[in-house]
């Protein structure tokens, strides 16, 4: 009995002496702060030349702007991470200022050329007739939607009808950059 008591006393003494062992290293509950940022949407288009001027063209003549290289370059930028599209159209047929005669839209043509984008240029390096409805020129890849500028180059051509009336004809070429909903 005496030996048991001695044993218990020794054990408790050891435990007491090792009080520090029970004082295990403390750690507070974590303090959390919620962090947030809203990264602004970038979705824009620019063009380096906003006038497509063929100058004097004779009836029956074909004239090409940008031959061998390009006439103007559209720059598209999106950081929306989604596929976007570039479309082109003519607001109206080429219309004479004095006589109000019209040259049909299909006599004015565009040719989508080089791009640095990774998407698809529709009818690349082919002259396409303008229409008053939008035509797809470029379908981007998702890699084109991380804010890098994507360049798309164009040539233009006009074929004045043999019976075209002398006049100053004009129309507006419309480029549209859009995403599908």
């Amino acid at each position, binding site marked *: 009995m005496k030996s048991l*008591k001695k044993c*218990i*006393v020794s054990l*408790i*003494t050891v*435990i*007491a002496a090792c*009080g520090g062992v*029970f*004082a295990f*290293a*403390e*750690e*507070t509950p*974590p*303090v*959390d*702060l*919620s*962090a*947030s*940022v*809203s*990264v*602004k*949407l*970038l979705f824009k288009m620019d063009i380096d030349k906003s006038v497509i001027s063929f100058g004097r063209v004779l009836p029956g003549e074909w004239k090409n702007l940008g031959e061998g290289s390009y006439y103007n370059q559209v720059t598209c930028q999106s*950081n*929306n*991470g989604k596929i976007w599209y570039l479309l082109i159209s003519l607001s109206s047929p080429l219309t004479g200022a004095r006589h109000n005669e019209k040259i049909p839209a299909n006599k004015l043509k565009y040719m989508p050329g080089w791009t640095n984008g990774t998407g698809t240029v529709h009818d690349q390096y082919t002259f396409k007739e303008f229409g008053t409805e939008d035509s797809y020129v470029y379908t981007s890849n998702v890699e084109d*939607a*991380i*804010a*890098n500028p994507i360049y798309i180059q164009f040539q233009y051509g006009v074929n004045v009808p043999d019976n075209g009336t002398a006049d100053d004809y004009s129309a507006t070429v419309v480029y549209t950059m859009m995403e599908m909903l």
Partner: protein
Amino acid sequence: MKFIFITLLLVSITTICLAGEFTMSTDTSNVSFGEMAIGDWKELGGGTYHNQLTCKSTNGKTWYVKIYVLAPLTSGTKTINNSYFKYMPGWTNGTGSVQNQYSFIAFSGISSLVYVSGPDDNSGSDVYLQFKYGLSIPANQVAGIYNTTVRYVMTETL
């Protein structure tokens, strides 16, 4: 038997004495940068600080404050690399040492040491640590709302 009881009582007292105060709190619980454009750099805290931690220990031991983020700033599947998100430990009334004081340090997913307490910080006084934050938006960052959690821990182990 009487001796055993006294010894047990001593052990209990020892244990009670060990249960000191060891706390940390913050005066602001968010780090909101609002709207930023690609290429922008924004600091939160201006000329002073954005948030202040209050640490208290009565344990008489050296303690440490560490910081990390639970994940990079994330929006869906897109993230902003931690190297663009930074914190700056600033002023303290403590007597310990602030690591990289007044310097912007990139966050990491692994805890980084911010403060090592001094001898006078361990006796129950409030020790304040102030912080600023900075974020830049990388060139190719996709638009969206990015979130994460900044976590502070106060511990007695390194």
